[in-house]
């Protein structure tokens, strides 16, 4: 029930594509927190998606197939799809705007108080512009949520590892989809395949998202094309948000790696694609219609979406170039299986190269990270605790940590393995002044506290007890029950033991005579024969048995208390 959710923390712009479904239709009324680049680029991704979908309106939509009996008979992957009944139409731009307007912008290392009970803090995760890991902590417990992090040096600010230390629980997710591929090697392969194709007069198609890895690819090409003698080959970036994406990338200096930041200080644009645009090597268009059809020259390199090859301008290029073996399609986005993506276009003559570039953590980096950060417990999705189904012999492709990670499954509720013991409290200075500490052991002092506890917005404050009320002047009401003492005025606990001999001496000093001491199994009995009083003294208890003589009782009590410590 999403209306019971108070807060949504967003890790990066890829992790927020479903946000309008939650904020617009579920009764959710909490707060969403995200960084500014996450929101701006997330908006671009959603805008592109909405635009692509709205370009090809469906006259009618079929829903009968969602019936389980029919779905069973359908070809794969439809027959294996789960929970098809919950599938929804794509949201509209209006819903996107409404959803995004509910997000509170936050910056890295900003401490955000939630209901006075916990503090959340986004930290740089190194994966994308504005991508964050989150710390959720109280004064005594700390949970880190690590999702989509990278230790590689690309354009975003490096991952903040130090702040993850001392976590009670670390929730780890968003690891690389392709644990066996090395992103650097893939970039090299990307460039060489691209060069080979173009030299042979072919075109290169790169299905991609409009933000993220494309910035790094353009930067590589910027350095590569001149040395490869390809500077005359046009690069086209086609997306309804191509221009915005390129512009936005240049204004988030504070969220970039150090190198790029220092460029801004010069002042120069942090990404070299500004220069590619200025020198007309890179051109961007909202779609293949309009200006693009006039400017289009071959051979060329086209970056366009959607990486699933199911919608967007990429579909046109697949159909245009698919029949020639001169052309190449290079898959760089790891989110979709390229074989499945290509299936409807078969048979294809064009070359297909698979260079997935996923900079997120691989298992070696994870174990390095966990060694560094040393959380008490690790919690992760089930699939990270066993090798991928396709490579079941690769037992190294699992999260390896001590104690073993606790795993969770879809729709499973997990109780995190830690016990809360303390909460923060503030002691008012007036109260603190009145405390009398005594040293019990070297370095450890105790003070008994009687105070008024005030709790507001989950903050606890201890205030000095109110002064005893002045006896009300005027007529004194006489009612027995008024005199009944308030048993809430609690006495401290006692500790220690009473040395009999010294106790007897003290009694004598205070005027008691005729004292007799008897030994018992556990201690002693002190008899004050004159007062008809009996005091049983044992290691951990003292029992005073006397007549109903309050004066006497109080005198004896005070003498006993002299030997004991109060708590």
């Amino acid at each position: 029930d999403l209306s019971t959710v108070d807060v949504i923390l967003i890790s990066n712009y890829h992790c927020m594509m479903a946000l309008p479904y939650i904020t617009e239709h579920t009764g959710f009324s909490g707060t969403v927190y995200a960084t500014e680049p996450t929101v701006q680029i997330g908006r671009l991704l959603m805008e592109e998606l909405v635009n692509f979908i709205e370009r090809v309106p469906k006259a009618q939509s079929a829903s009968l197939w969602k019936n389980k009996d029919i779905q069973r008979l359908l070809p794969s992957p439809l027959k294996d799809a789960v929970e098809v009944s919950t599938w929804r139409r794509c949201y509209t731009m209006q819903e996107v705007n409404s959803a995004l307007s509910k997000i509170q912008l936050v910056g890295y290392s900003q401490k955000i108080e939630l209901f006075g009970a916990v503090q959340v803090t986004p930290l740089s995760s190194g994966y994308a512009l504005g991508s964050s890991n989150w710390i959720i902590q109280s004064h005594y417990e700390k949970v880190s949520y690590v999702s989509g992090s990278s230790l590689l040096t690309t354009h975003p600010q490096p991952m903040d590892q130090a702040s993850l230390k001392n976590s009670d629980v670390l929730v780890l997710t968003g690891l690389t989809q392709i644990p066996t591929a090395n992103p650097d090697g893939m970039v090299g392969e990307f460039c060489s395949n691209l060069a080979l194709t173009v030299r042979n007069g072919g075109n290169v198609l790169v299905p991609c998202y409009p933000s993220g890895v494309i910035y790094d690819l353009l930067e590589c090409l910027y350095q590569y094309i001149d040395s490869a003698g390809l500077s005359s080959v046009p690069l086209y970036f086609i997306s309804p948000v191509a221009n915005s994406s390129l512009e936005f990338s240049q204004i988030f200096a504070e969220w970039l790696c150090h190198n790029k930041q220092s460029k801004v200080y010069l002042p120069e644009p942090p990404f070299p694609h500004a220069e590619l645009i200025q020198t007309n090597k890179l051109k961007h268009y909202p779609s293949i219609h309009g200006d693009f059809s006039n400017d289009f020259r071959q051979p060329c390199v086209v970056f366009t979406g959607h990486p699933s090859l199911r919608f967007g301008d990429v579909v046109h290029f697949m159909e245009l170039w698919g029949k020639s073996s001169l052309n190449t399609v290079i898959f760089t986005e790891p989110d979709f299986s390229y074989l499945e993506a290509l299936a409807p276009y078969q048979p294809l003559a064009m070359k297909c190269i698979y260079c997935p570039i996923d900079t997120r953590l691989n298992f070696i980096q994870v174990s390095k990270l966990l060694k560094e950060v040393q959380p008490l417990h690790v919690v992760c999705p089930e699939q990270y605790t066993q090798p991928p189904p396709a490579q079941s012999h690769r037992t190294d492709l699992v999260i390896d940590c001590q104690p073993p990670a606790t795993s969770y499954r879809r729709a499973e509720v997990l109780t995190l393995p830690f016990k809360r013991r303390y909460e923060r409290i503030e002691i008012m200075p007036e109260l603190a002044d009145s405390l009398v500490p005594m040293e019990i052991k070297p370095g450890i002092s105790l003070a008994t506290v009687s105070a008024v506890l005030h709790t507001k917005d989950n903050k606890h404050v201890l205030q000095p007890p109110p002064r005893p009320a002045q006896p009300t002047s005027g007529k004194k009401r006489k009612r027995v029950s008024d005199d009944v003492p308030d048993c809430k005025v609690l006495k401290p606990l006692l500790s220690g033991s009473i040395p009999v001999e010294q106790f007897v001496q003290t009694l004598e000093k205070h005027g008691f005579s005729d004292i007799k001491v008897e030994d018992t199994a556990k201690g002693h009995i002190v008899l004050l024969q004159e007062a008809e009083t009996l005091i049983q003294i044992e290691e951990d208890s003292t029992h005073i048995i006397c007549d109903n003589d309050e004066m006497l009782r109080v005198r004896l009590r005070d003498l006993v208390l002299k030997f004991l410590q109060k708590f």
Partner: protein
Amino acid sequence: VCGASVGSGAGQDVGRSCILVSIAGKNVMLDCGMHMGFSDDRRFPDFSYITQSGRLTDFLDCVIISHFHLDHCGALPYFSEMVGYDGPIYMTHPTQAICPILLEDYRKIAVDKKGEANFFTSQMIKDCMKKVVAVHLHQTVQVDDELEIKAYYAGHVLGAAMFQIKVGSESVVYTGDYNMTPDRHLGAAWIDKCRPNLLITESTYATTIRDSKRCRERDFLKKVHETVERGGKVLIPVFALGRAQELCILLETFWERMNLKVPIYFSTGLTEKANHYYKLFITWTNQKIRKTFVQRNMFEFKHIKAFDRAFADNPGPMVVFATPGMLHAGQSLQIFRKWAGNEKNMVIMPGYCVQGTVGHKILSGQRKLEMEGRQVLEVKMQVEYMSFSAHADAKGIMQLVGQAEPDSVLLVHGEAKKMEFLKQKIEQEFRVNCYMPANGETVVLPTSPSIPGGISLGLLKREMAQGLLPEAKKPRLLHGTLIMKDSNFRLVSSEQALKELGLAEHQLRFTCRVHLHDTRKEQETAMRVYSHLKSILKDHCVQHLPDGSVTVESILIQAAAPSEDPATKVLLVSWTYQDEELGSYLTSLLKKGLPQAPS
């Protein structure tokens, strides 16, 4: 205790800002400005105020720079490289980017043009900037384990920030210069209700309630337009970054709308670079510019072109933005000298001018200026002052005080007389103490921070559960034991404290004999005691147990018959030290005897 000493320059004066704050044992220097009206020792703050002996690095925990104006950062290289400071210097990213450029610019004017000696070098500026740590807005920067700082948006100029300095539960907010109304390129300052012990605010426009921005803009455009219409030249002395961009946006849109052809120039090479900074740090500008920057970048001007020295002698009307803003040196002063003699021309001073500058002289009505070499310059051109400088006015300052809710306010960066007015207003409206120290004066504020500790969840839950009971309207007392180990304070129940320290509880119990005259059997006596107590102690749990004894809460009462006298019964009342009050009350109650049983 937190003390703010207006170390060396920010007091009742708009010149060099430099404030030393000592808070809970931490020393933080706020801004490191220089005075542009002086060209001798008085130019830089006197850092011997901070510490007479010893190194600044040992004494200061950090330095914070609020924004790139030279009256806030101009002495930084002198301070860090010539006096010597190696600790961290915090500022925002745009400030870090722009600050060294302005410093270098200023150095060139001072050394190369005026030939001043004993000034910092280019290398010193670079070395100084290496000590800078950039901060994000709202990022909590942990300077050390105890000291943390946080930046808030301040408007004023690109990258200007207010800073919260916090140690434990004590905090100070320093505003630097700020602006509470959004202008054509920047947003308004904002701070949350952080309730600092002290708010140190600038008070440049302490008494001014400025008329609406639109009127001032219209006035400005009208004056510029009239002057160029009659063939005059308009000189607008500005600083390269800040007001200049706002006025450029204003003129650019006006020129476009009126289809004017009169040239507008912007002096010095810094211009284009300056505009570039605005483009790259567009996230620091106001919402409107940020929203539209993809379609149209407001900092790409069509009508405004780079100025060449030779243009100053061109005939015909023109508008020139020239640096620096107070006419104390450089290109603006050169152009001013050329144009001052012609009454058709106009100079518009869009910002505040410090004493001693040409700008200040002509604004105060002086028309004969003594220049270097005993030359006298007669000013015939029109002199206009327009307050475009983006400081908060009195209303804005009050607004910020209302936002932050400080315990006390300290006014700096203003003129004594005006500050006095504002001080009274703040004390009246917010009922907080307001201080306005002079240069070199120290203000000491005693604080009484509460002490943070932990409370065991068991104790807390027990208390909370009892707090929910209906009779818990009156304040209830919580009892526990505070365990102090090093500087770690934990409040636990007394039982837990004993357990943790490996101590056994010592139980102290009392049993009192109460003699009653009662001929009935013990059981009946007990029954009577029970009904008697039940009727009186309505708020207590009184029980009659099957073995014949009576309990009131944890107090046990048993009736016995001493063999010697059948008419007397003895009640044994037994309680622990913790129940003493109730126990002793019961004995005295029972001593009075039991009411006659209704027969």
